[in-house]
């Protein structure tokens, strides 16, 4: 993340926000376990310093699933060491972070193939098979 070189002290300091976000993720995870209702935390809207962000990443850790998406730029999705808590990072122009969120759910929607895309893929594959000589 870019920082202001004139005031380096501001982004180097942990403010305690990481623990607040972690606590919020914990509450959402309990709701998911009890009711199946997903929850989300928009990280971009929070005043996280660089130190907060890396502390949060360390606290959540990495779990069993990691995915890299090539969708209108790069995106990274990984399940944290707490199953059901996912970190979704979308990159935009210049590889900068366009949006970033914690999703507390069984699987993030962006990983699920949409029925419209399945239909289009089936049609494309059918055409491919019809025109391919084997």
């Amino acid at each position, binding site marked *: 993340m870019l920082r*202001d070189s*004139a*005031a380096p002290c501001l982004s180097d300091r942990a403010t305690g926000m990481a623990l607040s976000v972690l606590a919020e993720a914990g509450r959402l995870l309990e709701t998911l376990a009890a009711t199946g209702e997903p929850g989300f935390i*928009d990280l971009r809207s929070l005043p996280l310093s660089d130190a907060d962000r890396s502390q949060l990443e360390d606290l959540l850790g990495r779990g069993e699933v990691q995915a890299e998406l090539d969708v209108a730029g790069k995106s990274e999705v990984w399940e944290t060491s707490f199953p059901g808590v996912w970190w979704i990072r979308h990159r*935009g122009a210049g590889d900068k972070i*366009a*949006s*970033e*969120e914690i999703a507390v759910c069984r699987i993030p929607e*962006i990983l699920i193939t949409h029925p419209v895309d399945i239909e289009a893929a089936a049609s494309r594959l059918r055409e491919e098979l019809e025109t391919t000589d084997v």
Partner: protein
Amino acid sequence: MSDKKTLGEMLTERGVSRRSFLKYASYTASIMALPPTAATAIAQGIANARRQSVIWLSFQECTGCTEAFTRAKAPSVEDLIFDFISLDYHHTLMNASGHLAEEAREAAMKENAGKYIVVVDGSVPLKDDGIYSTIAGMTNLQMLEETCKDAFAVIAVGSCATFGGIPGANPNPTGAVAISDIITDKPIINISGCPPIPEAMTGTISYLLSFGSIPELDHLGRPKAFFGEAIHDRCYRRPFYERGMFAKSFDDEGARQGWCLFEVGCKGPVTYNACATLKWNGGVSFPIQSGHGCLGCSEPNFWDMGGFYKPLSTATGDPTKFVGGAVVAGAAIGAASAVMARNKRNKVLKEGK
């Protein structure tokens, strides 16, 4: 022109997946401070929408707003907006010129009556029958009134269109006025700034596409998502303000240490915009981060606010004329807070000795 197919159908044919819609929707929800749960509704709304016809009118302006909107970047999530709209008229960007250009505007108005969006940058001169700015033999006033007649909504972009801007600055030789001074029977969204933040323009259009309605606006007709907070409220240098640590000039130790720029004229306390959070050039920086105070460019009559380098508390001119009591109140609060902060700091230092 607008397509009969939905955006979902149109882009699926071009191999754009629904994941792209969802990613764009997550980005839009984030910049508009909507809950992340809104992303699914936005993605669905955009997929079901028709390509939005947009007629862009440029009057007394410098083309900076267009430059901001079309900022050159590699294709990315932010650029998907250009797939979602059909820019049917924009005399700087379109290939057609002369009567062919005007025919394109008239055809878009006819085919999309009641549905098209008019985007306007630049103010409209009214003095001497509006002769100071004409296009295709029409005054800006004539073109604006004719084009807005059957529009669904009007978006005034940039401080010239929203508040008169530099053309309207003292002594306003052309009698320049804002769009909202002329068009009073259509929903008008003001996206001020010189230029406005690109995301404020694209985010607002995406909101219109997704929900078919106008986002929540402030008392100056600006989307609250982008203009709901003062620059000062979200400024990363605010901790220095609270502690009474101010740069006194642009080359002193305070400036080098990144202290608050209030005393060198920063208008952040009375300026409502999202520069401190969205920033510029893909999130690289914003004026204060680059070492310069905020000019207040998204506020009415910023050009006449009394000097870019004069602190708010000592502004010259008559600030009440431009923004009511806001500047005076802001300056008073700012000055008082600064004095209190300094006193507190001195007390702490004294007690610590």
